[in-house]
């Protein structure tokens, strides 16, 4: 199992695309530091930076790039065959990849969110944001990993989800908020460190249950789809 994880991690870090992820956390921390230094009231810049940039943009985008990269890239260039022609139960392939994706996403997002949250309010908020975003990273990673197996263009569909479902509709239609990972993360963080900076209409128990459901459900789906993975001809 660790071999799968090792190959996955090597594959992620070995590609240049990973550098694309670096500016996002830096921007987050940079803005937080700037606002704090200029003495702007946290109540004003908190929601924009923590939620508007951090949870609404940095978390989903990082999770998307990493989550589709751990399996989707291998499927696209055909190297997944090497991992599949081994007597490994398919969950021993999916779980390490999920762990790598979650770990990398969480590290990339939680650290700057912790810094920004601490600067905005308190260490408690920073920790709450870090923890909630880690859980969000898990849910997102499971979702995008499953998407990589369900469709040939997982990044595009993931973008549709993040931009249109969570972004556009989530702003205008309250009903869709219940089914948005972003809102669950906000609810969980708010529960751990209640603050005016975070607010959502989704209740905490619902958020917790749905996060767990998405994380587990999509992982199971991914495992099942991997069992029936088909390669037809030379152009897949």
């Amino acid at each position, binding site marked *: 199992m660790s071999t799968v994880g090792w190959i996955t991690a090597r594959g992620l870090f070995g590609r240049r695309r990973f550098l694309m992820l670096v500016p996002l956390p830096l921007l987050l921390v940079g803005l937080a530091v700037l606002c704090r230094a200029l003495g702007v009231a946290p109540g004003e810049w908190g929601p924009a930076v923590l939620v508007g940039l951090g949870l609404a943009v940095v978390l989903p985008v990082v999770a998307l790039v990493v989550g589709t990269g751990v399996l989707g890239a291998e499927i696209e260039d055909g190297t997944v*065959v090497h991992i599949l022609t081994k007597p490994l139960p398919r969950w021993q392939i999916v779980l390490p990849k999920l762990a790598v994706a979650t770990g990398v996403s969480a590290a990339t997002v939680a650290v700057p969110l912790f810094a920004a949250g601490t600067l905005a309010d308190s260490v408690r908020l920073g920790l709450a944001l870090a923890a909630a975003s880690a859980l969000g990273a898990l849910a997102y990673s499971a979702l995008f990993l499953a998407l990589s197996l369900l469709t040939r263009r997982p990044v595009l569909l993931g973008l549709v989800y993040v931009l249109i479902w969570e972004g556009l509709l989530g702003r205008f239609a309250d009903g869709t908020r219940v089914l948005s990972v972003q809102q669950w993360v906000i609810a969980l963080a708010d529960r751990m460190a209640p603050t005016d900076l975070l607010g959502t209409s989704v209740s905490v128990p619902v958020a917790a249950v749905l996060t767990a459901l998405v994380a587990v459900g999509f992982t199971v789906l991914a495992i099942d789809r991997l069992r029936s993975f088909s390669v037809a001809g030379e152009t897949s």
Partner: protein
Amino acid sequence: MTTISAQPAAPTTPASTLDLAGVSRWYGNVVAVNDVSMRLGPGVTGLLGPNGAGKTTLLHMMAGFLSPSRGTVSLDGEPTWRNPQVYRRLGLVSEREAVHAFLTAYEFVLASAKLHQLPDPAAAARRAIDLVEMADAQDRRIGTYSKGMRQRTRVAAALVHDPQVLLLDEPFNGMDPRQRLHMMTLLHRLGDAGRTILFSSHILEEVEQVSGTVQVMVAGRLAASGDFRTIRRLMTNRPHVFAIHSTDDRALAVALMAEPSVTGVELGRTGLSVKAGDYGAFTRALPKLALRHGIRVRQLLPEDESLESVFSYLVEA
């Protein structure tokens, strides 16, 4: 002359049989594989067919990467679909040359060995790499390799767990003649050691050199199986063609035309070309004829027993 530095070990487990029973695979209205039944035992078999005949589809079904729409594909009685344990005895070298470019050959084969949960992965990896003669380049990244080297690396990764059954899809693609000879020798030895090897190709000389046993696929159907010379003799609706040199070609030609087993005679500058409908009758009649007319036959060669002619007859049929 190439020398193989390492010998493949004889398998310690009994030989495996790959069994296909009435296997069909269709995509909507397109039938890619049409009711194919075959049994593959120890030795090397060539899967032959023009492009688009369904060879890759069949190979992927055997390797558990595609489920048959009808029929069963089984290895020693176990289905290959949705059964990862079958890979303990199966190795696949696919046609796509995709391989993790950021790993070195050694790391790649070692990872393969570890994923197979071998007791001593490092030794197995080194052995496999020696087998394909990649020992000098094994510590360079695969991204820097030539096509043939990448191919050999993938073969090493497929052989690292000493599989009973090895499936190769167009393995000689991109190999230079020396590498091809080496690979062919390797496959021969593996086959002689009792493993079941199936490789697909549309280059007939390769198949002729590596194996006499072929499975010919045309348009999704299995057109012929077995030794190709025997297949040729079974094709009675095609006349056999012989090239004959003799002391008096014209007289022999006249005499042969009277023979009932002969369907056509062509007199050329280099000799006679005779079409015979009945192989056995002709070969018995020729010596008697020549003796009666006092003609000495200097050379008698069957012209169309090569795999190429067998293949072209099957494809045209």
